[in-house]
């Protein structure tokens, strides 16, 4: 990143990543100016803020690198909070980029203190040159020494990427308010003290909080977690809310808050509760791979080429599969973090994490426990009810309802809101009879 007012340079150091030409040590897939440097730097800092914060148990420190993806016509910066309960993404669209070819690839960027300082200093009149993936030294604006802190992405971040996109794919636009009203609404939210779970509904031109869910409402658990949006608020043109369909009896759900900026979009997605991280949501487990979807996913992954919007129809034609099978295959790729979901465009986008993800769901603790149960022969299926014996306890899983339920305490606490429990998973594996091959 270059601040050229005084001819000095700031570089975004990349730490190895995947591009369209295969894996490269220092990939470089964008070099050009940004149309609105103030807003872009505020947005980037907001993404970095989320990566550096824990909203749950905030005493613990956190410092992780945002992931950047070049998608041909846009750049996406993504991060999770340390508690994994907040996901932030800045999409810099073509209008926000001034010149320069956007290549394809994914890498992660170290937003360290000197870069943070340089971004904070950028004024509206300074041109800002962004170069993702330079070969030279990271920062040369300051005379002081540079502190490089490389933090590898932890497993729960990778699981978070997978979960967030599965959850987001059920989102729809629920409300849109103009910039001024959005600012007033967001600033009126309670941020201190014990705040009950809130729901937000459209009210005329603006939004209103309520204490109970209603059809069309978006859940807002822990309003303080939207703090990162404050950085860009005064440039906001509109605020858009996305969430899954809810009824008046719904438990808290995830929701996405998107601030429309000139040439950019900043989206913050919140988990259903402050104490819940996306990594443990278990929605990936709902779509546990069928052998067919796995084969399809292998085929589809070959056809992906860093599209900003994956066209399911096109892909179906190319692969010779039905659109349903392509969708199932994309969901499967999502579980490995290889595609993301953009609720604003209601479309998947291609992203390859610069790490060996393998099959993320294999590392899921619940799935591991479920395999152990199946391996120990703990499951007995009897008509509409299955019995799972685990140590001294016996759990009943009912198979008749729309959602399989269990009599364990974990299920009682979440009632399906965090995916199936290990007993339900074990029963499903037994019924399908493929569990042991999966290991």
């Amino acid at each position: 990143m270059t601040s050229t007012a005084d001819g000095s340079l700031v570089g975004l150091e990349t730490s190895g990543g995947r591009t369209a030409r295969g894996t490269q040590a220092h990939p470089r897939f964008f070099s050009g100016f940004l149309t609105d440097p103030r807003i872009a730097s505020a947005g980037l800092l907001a993404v970095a803020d989320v990566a550096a914060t824990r909203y749950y148990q905030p005493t613990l420190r956190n410092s992780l690198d945002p992931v950047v993806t070049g998608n041909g016509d846009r750049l996406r910066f993504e991060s999770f909070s340390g508690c994994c309960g907040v996901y932030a993404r800045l999409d810099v669209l073509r209008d926000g980029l001034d010149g320069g070819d956007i290549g394809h690839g994914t890498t992660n960027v170290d937003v360290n203190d000197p870069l943070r300082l340089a971004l904070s200093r950028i004024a509206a009149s300074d041109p800002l040159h962004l170069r993702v993936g330079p070969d030279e030294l990271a920062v040369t604006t300051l005379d002081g020494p540079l502190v490089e802190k490389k933090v590898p992405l932890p497993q729960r971040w990778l699981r978070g990427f997978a979960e967030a996109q599965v959850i987001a794919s059920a989102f729809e636009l629920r409300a849109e308010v103009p910039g001024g009203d959005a600012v007033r609404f967001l600033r009126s939210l309670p941020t201190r003290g014990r705040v009950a779970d809130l729901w937000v509904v459209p009210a005329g031109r603006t939004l209103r909080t309520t204490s109970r869910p209603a059809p069309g409402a978006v859940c807002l658990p822990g309003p303080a977690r939207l703090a990162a949006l404050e950085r860009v608020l005064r440039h906001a043109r509109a605020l858009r809310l996305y969430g899954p369909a809810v009824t008046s009896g719904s438990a808290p759900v995830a929701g996405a808050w998107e601030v429309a900026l000139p040439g950019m979009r900043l989206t913050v997605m919140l988990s259903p509760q402050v104490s819940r991280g996306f990594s443990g949501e278990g929605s990936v487990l709902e779509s546990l791979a069928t052998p067919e979807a796995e084969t399809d996913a292998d085929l589809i992954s070959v056809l992906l080429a860093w599209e900003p919007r994956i066209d399911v129809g096109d892909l179906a034609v190319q692969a010779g599969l039905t659109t349903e099978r392509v969708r199932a295959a994309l969901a499967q790729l999502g579980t490995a973090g290889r595609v993301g979901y953009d609720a604003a465009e209601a479309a998947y986008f291609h992203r390859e994490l610069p790490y060996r993800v393998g099959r993320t769901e294999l590392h899921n603790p619940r799935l591991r426990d479920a395999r152990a149960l199946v391996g120990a022969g703990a499951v007995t299926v009897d008509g509409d009810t299955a019995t799972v014996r685990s140590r001294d306890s016996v759990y009943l899983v009912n198979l008749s309802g729309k959602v399989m339920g269990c009599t364990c305490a974990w299920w009682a606490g979440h009632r399906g809101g965090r995916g199936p429990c290990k007993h339900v998973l074990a029963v499903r594996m037994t019924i399908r009879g493929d569990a042991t091959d999966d290991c």
Partner: protein
Amino acid sequence: MTAERMDYHEALLDAVRAGDLDLTGTLARKLHDADRKKILAAIRKFVSALPPDQAGSPAFTAAELAGLAGQATPAAATQWLVAMGRRRQRHSWYSLMPAESLDVLSGRDPAWLGELAHLLAAELDKGKGFGGGQRPINHLIRPLIRMSGCATPTNPGYAALWMVNSGGLGDLRAAPETATLLPIALEMEGAGAYIEGHDKGYVEGAEKHGSKDPANPSLPWKEKLVRLTESGELGRAVLIDLCVGRLLRGGRPYEVRCFRSLLESLRLTDDDIATRATDWARLAADADAPTASAAMGFLRRMVDAERPVDGDLLADASRDILARPEKALVRTHLVLLGRALDQDGYPPSELLPAVAVAFGHEDGAVQEQAWKIVARHLAAVDAAARTRIVEAVPALTPDLRDKVTADLGVAEPADEPYRETLPPISSPVRAAATPLTVAEVVQGVVAECAADSPDAAAWTEDSERILDGLVRVAHRDRAALTEALGTLTYPYDWTAQDEPPGAGVALVAKVLVGKVGIDELPALPRRLTDPPYRAMDGETIIRGVWQMRTWEVARRITTDMPPFLLATPSWSTGAVDADVLVDRLAAYARLNLPAGSADFDQALLRVRIPQGPDREQFVAAAAGLGTPEGARLADWFSGEGLQPVEEDDRLVLPVVRETFTDPFRRLGDKLGWSYDALELPRWVSTLPLLRGYVAAQSLWRGACSHHGEGGQWAGDLPLLVQADGSIGPCIEAVVAEGLARAGEAARPGVVEGLLQLVARGELDTVRCGAHLSQVNVPRLRPFTPPEVLDVLSEVARTGAYATVWGILLGALPGLLPEGRRPRQLGALLSLAVECASRCGETGSITGLDAVADSKGSSQTIKQARRLRDYLTRAAERVSS
């Protein structure tokens, strides 16, 4: 290997075995490079053979020393030392390395030692906290640097450690590292918090522990840093830049505060300030409020000292600063801009459009201040700037906008007719279906037992369904249900300790599996019969109703085995439809089964009395059942049902006194007061047809509440609004109590309830306001009552301006007299002007003239005048 070296080996191992640290140190120092590997292997073997209780023995320590001598590379030695340090720290935080460690190392090559020192210093970067790391290791680094003569490490961790241990001012002045290491340490996260903590401790403990040596005084860090810049060991510009950089970077308030006060202590000169104008502008725009305020102070100094701030820069920053939500900051900056504009050198065409950003501020007083500045310099701006100002005018509140459009001579925007934004009326929803399979019911029981509340007897909406599910499934297949319930582990039930054997769904499950015997179930709740509780307070009775119902179910589920319960709600409020109850009784009649008395009493309190032509049909159907319950229901349908009656200024329900069982019949009398929190959902669910009665009871409870309970009940107001029956005359007072008492958690519920009532046309907002001005909420720790201003602003923001105006119209006469004025009265008046002018309402407020006519320039008086002006003009407009 020569015999001599063999002997030497044996001597070293003997010294280790004997635990002779001195001898081990001496021998290990002379170890030959070629022998290190062999010695290390021998030591590892020796240590693994040691019994576990020998871990801290002299022999073990000697082995550690000999092992250190056996390390070939600095990296390996670092790992060995880190492990040694960790073992010591586990024992005690104050433990150090054995003194002989340095002896052992002293035989090595200086370059080797230098590398070791740097590697150990690098270990500090992994530690948590500022200047942390391992104490035993920390104490080795400096001697190693001295021994090796290597360059000082400059990694942040070491710099922080060096800073923490750098001693007094004299030591710092003498140390050659000061200029290099201090800035590195200060850049580290945690430095600010360390300095703040140290300096706070210094103030408290200086007398006792501080060094008295005048040449090397122990001083607070901030003072040391300032003095170092004065004597030149630390560059002044370096320190200032560093502080500004840390402020720009932001962080936790405690961390940032240090650098702010450090800047203050450095007494910045006009030159220092002028060279960093861009940074002050960015800080004023983006930083936290205290830092922004300090940065604005520097900008003001520049303007006052007539050292011009670049016009573009000021205009650019002002646009951001004036968009900030903090009123005080925006007002301060407007004063600054006013001053700048009064001087030459600041072109109004650039600055005035930026000032106009404040037209969009929420506070009317800020808007007015901004307009005054614009009006003063408007003549000097060019056409383009004027257009931009005119574009910002619609953001003003209507009363000010009218004035401004007149002054600017532009056409007033055509006002659209005002429409209040209110939520759609919410109706009760159908109650969720009862679980019908064994597995579903057992899942429900687990959820009830595992609920977050420690009170297993707690009632929730779900409890009703699950209780009914238990009855239905037990009727069908008791053996399977009992077997499944037997697989559960039941958590300890705290309520059972207070009132054995407990109550609720969990108790019924326990009776089914035989953990509790039927003979253990009491006839009436203890708190309703025992002397200390005989006050008959409403909370205890309502709670007793649930206890009695679950005990009745527990008795009958194993004996009569009813097919289902009569009182299970049809609607989310608890109401039961008339036809549903008749059908349920018909099924009982077919089975020749009597109804449970508590179950049937509750069903009667919940059943909607049919109205109109159907009524006779329902009476006939009930009577036609031929059972005593059928006859009673027919009577109930044909009578007046539940009619509250006023007795001694309190509402009572005489109709339940005669025919209902205990504790239902107690609801017929005046209810006593209780210390328990008001559980509105349970009240509504027990009496879902009596909104007005429940409102009256809540009011009486709320009004009598001496202890600040945070108005949690008020959060459930929407549920009360949805229930059946007339809302009654108390609702305005109930809403006023809720608005005045509801804490942060209950606020969305109160606002929702208020708007629902207004949308249904069931709330007189002016009366509600009058009550609001009379509510007296004591400020008792830890409960702080909410600011009414915040709640009303929230309601206004959603577009319900007429509602807020109504409430303020009612409330202001009670708040304006001297001695009764609340905090932020000026802002309340400003809100009143905004609401009235947006919805075009008018009215008169007693006492407003007295305030508006009094002398002074406080916001209260200014805003009172503004409100009076608006009301006079509005009245004129209406009459013309």
